[in-house]
């Protein structure tokens, strides 16, 4: 394995791991606050239990998430010193804001976890909400940094060195807002489905009304997010079309520049012939989705030098997977919202609870696929049209070993977290049984 490939794999592995924790850190505190709110309004002790159970989950994921994030920032320096040297001064700022947000999050979490008998109930509730707000803020800030890699701004490139640096312009680049919004919605969607599915499964096994309450809260968040997401995603696609036409061409596997370009469903891109085999074509739809007009011209890959192409097939499949999962979750959400409104009993029997169980991983798979589109679609650039990944990678040997080390570390962290969550569930169930007798 050569160094560049190992370094890219290690980055992908670490980020793919971190994003799961980060998403949970963003969405979960809001679920917790919602349940806490219901408890404070109606005094149903189940909701207090639920709030406490969820808050312990938040604490575990927070601790591991923070560490995997800190490890990431060291990895950036280790693997891509060329990137750090140039990018640190330009996009360090969102990271320093992230630090602040994270600090607040840690303080608020301390207050929330240990404040049950110490704080006034609504102050206590507020501290829980601050955990969530800081989590989302954290995520927004890092995404500004990532968006800058896609849409560099706030500096002039002077023969390999940045001059006229403007950190504010770099932070508020073209891509930042939409990427941040899309990711935030994705976090609610993925975590919502995962939590609803897990409680649905526990509910099917234990038949305890407690889990139904949990499912309803998590599902409501998930459903709203799933219905908003295709709209936000469409905006994201339009923004890519403008900023990174080559990425859009790879996503859609469009080889020739075409007017009223068709949207492909499925299809195997063949780089040699420049065609797609076995694809369903929806005429004019791509032009419409990318530019809002059915006869707009969409740039194809052949307009760009071959050495600037990203790995077309990976980007194309990842994009199709994300959109397919997004559509599936949107459908499931429509059905679920209807049940919630007219047929609440469908949440405990029939196909729907089982479908929720099946949907546990969908959101997370869509998130990983979406990031594959963004990151692989940017290749061969680490900073789009400015710096190549190959020129930023570390000159030192042995990245394979650190890759192995990290793979082991993440495996191990996953095992620890799984074990801890399992113990949580056990004690929750015992508490529920004791509550009954």
């Amino acid at each position, binding site marked *: 394995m050569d160094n560049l490939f190992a370094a890219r794999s290690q980055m992908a592995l670490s980020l793919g791991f971190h994003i799961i924790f980060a998403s949970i850190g963003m969405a979960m505190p809001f679920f917790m606050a919602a349940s806490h709110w219901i408890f404070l309004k109606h005094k149903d002790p189940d909701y207090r239990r639920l709030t406490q159970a969820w808050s312990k989950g938040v604490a575990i994921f927070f601790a591991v998430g923070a560490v995997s994030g800190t490890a990431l920032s*060291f990895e950036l320096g280790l693997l891509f010193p060329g990137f750090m040297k140039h990018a640190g001064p330009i996009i*360090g700022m969102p990271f320093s804001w992230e630090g602040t947000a994270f600090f607040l999050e840690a303080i608020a979490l301390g207050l929330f976890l240990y404040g049950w008998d110490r704080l006034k109930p609504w102050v206590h509730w507020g501290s829980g909400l601050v955990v969530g707000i800081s989590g989302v803020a954290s995520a927004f800030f890092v995404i500004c940094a990532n968006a800058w890699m896609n849409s560099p701004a706030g500096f002039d490139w002077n023969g390999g060195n940045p001059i006229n640096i403007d950190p504010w312009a770099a932070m508020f680049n073209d891509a930042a807002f939409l990427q941040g919004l899309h990711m935030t919605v994705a976090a609610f969607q993925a975590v919502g489905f995962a939590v609803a599915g897990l409680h649905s499964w526990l509910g099917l096994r234990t038949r305890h009304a407690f889990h139904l309450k949990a499912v309803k809260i998590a599902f409501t968040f998930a459903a709203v997010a799933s219905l908003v997401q295709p709209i936000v995603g469409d905006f994201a696609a339009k923004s890519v079309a403008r900023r990174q036409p080559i990425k859009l061409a790879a996503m859609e596997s469009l080889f020739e520049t075409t007017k009223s370009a068709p949207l492909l469903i499925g299809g195997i891109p063949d780089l040699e012939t420049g065609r797609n085999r076995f694809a369903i074509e929806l005429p004019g739809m791509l032009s419409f989705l990318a530019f809002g007009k059915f006869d707009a011209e969409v740039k194809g890959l052949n307009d760009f030098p071959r050495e600037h192409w990203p790995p077309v097939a990976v980007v194309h499949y990842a994009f199709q997977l994300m959109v397919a999962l997004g559509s599936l979750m949107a459908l499931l959400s429509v059905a679920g919202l209807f049940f919630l409104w007219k047929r609440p009993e469908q949440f405990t029997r029939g196909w729907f609870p089982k479908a929720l169980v099946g949907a546990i991983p969908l959101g997370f798979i869509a998130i990983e696929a979406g990031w594959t589109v963004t990151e692989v679609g940017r290749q061969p650039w680490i900073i789009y049209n400015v710096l190549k990944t190959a020129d930023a990678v570390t000159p030192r040997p042995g990245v394979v*070993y650190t890759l192995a*080390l990290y793979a082991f570390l993440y495996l191990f962290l996953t095992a620890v977290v799984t074990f801890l969550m399992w113990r949580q569930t056990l004690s929750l169930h015992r508490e529920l049984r004791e509550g009954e007798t």
Partner: protein
Amino acid sequence: MILITSIIAFLGVALLFYVLFAGADFGGGILELFLGKNLRKEQRALVTRAMAPVWEANHVWLVLAIVILFMGFPSIYTTMSVSLHLPLMAVLVGIVFRGCAFTFRHYDTYGKEFFSLYSRAFALSSVWTSFFLGVLGGAMIFGRIDPRTLGFAESYVAPWLNLFCLAMGLFTVCLFAFLAAVFLTGEADTRELRAVFRRKAALANGALIVTGALVFAFAEWGGHPLTKEFFASPLSLTCFVTASILWFPFWRSLRREGRGPTLSVRVIGVAIVALVLFGWYAVQFPVAVRFADGTGLNFYTEAAPGPTLNALLVALIAGTLLIFPALGYLFKVFKWETLEQKR
């Protein structure tokens, strides 16, 4: 110049707070390895109660220091994250372990079968993390880093694997244990428990002096004139002399029971630790990392361009304005109000 200096000041303060607060947390875990025969349960309960609400916030000072390096001094940051990657990783892994073990000792209410496992993991990872923090500090000052090498062992292992750095690790472990014992004398709510922690503070103090001597001995032995450097700089010399003078009132208060002496044990103990840290700053400054060829990375020459530093300073000041009230509230709720209740 002023801009850079104020950012370095933030860095220094972040590190100071990390050592004082998180160091005390680590020390609490380290002390659990030396519970002795008496009041074992009470000691554990005290450590847990003192740490529980604040430990996550305490660790954020490290993140702050990292962020300042990342944005303000990217080449220092990059050098450290390459040459010192393994000890940095060791620290991170230690922090996760500690966090998980600690949280779960507190939270895993489903049966007690894992209690001793959690406690063991908590204590050992506290030692491990403190040790590697010391190793990191040692590697920055000792000058075994070769920024241009392309060898594997020379890149990742040689910068920190030597007797001096290991001695620094041990010294840090003792320093944190000392700090925790000092803090806990004040948190303890019975006479007997206070006596236990006073004794531990005295023992840790002894260990601190022994390992401190070891650090200097290994520095000389490794060909690094640390003693000369330390006494050549008026600042570090002052720190050293002040700290030495402070031992006398410290020992006097340590032998006596009562509110006044307990308070002065805490205040003087913290001052001593801070002076040790300041002494280190004074020897290092303004070079952040020293290289094998005698050169190093100077804060002033490696700083990011002006606009970046401006933005960083704005972020730091705004962050401070947000964070300090929140942090103050956290400590007020969990530390002062508890003390009030005890009286």
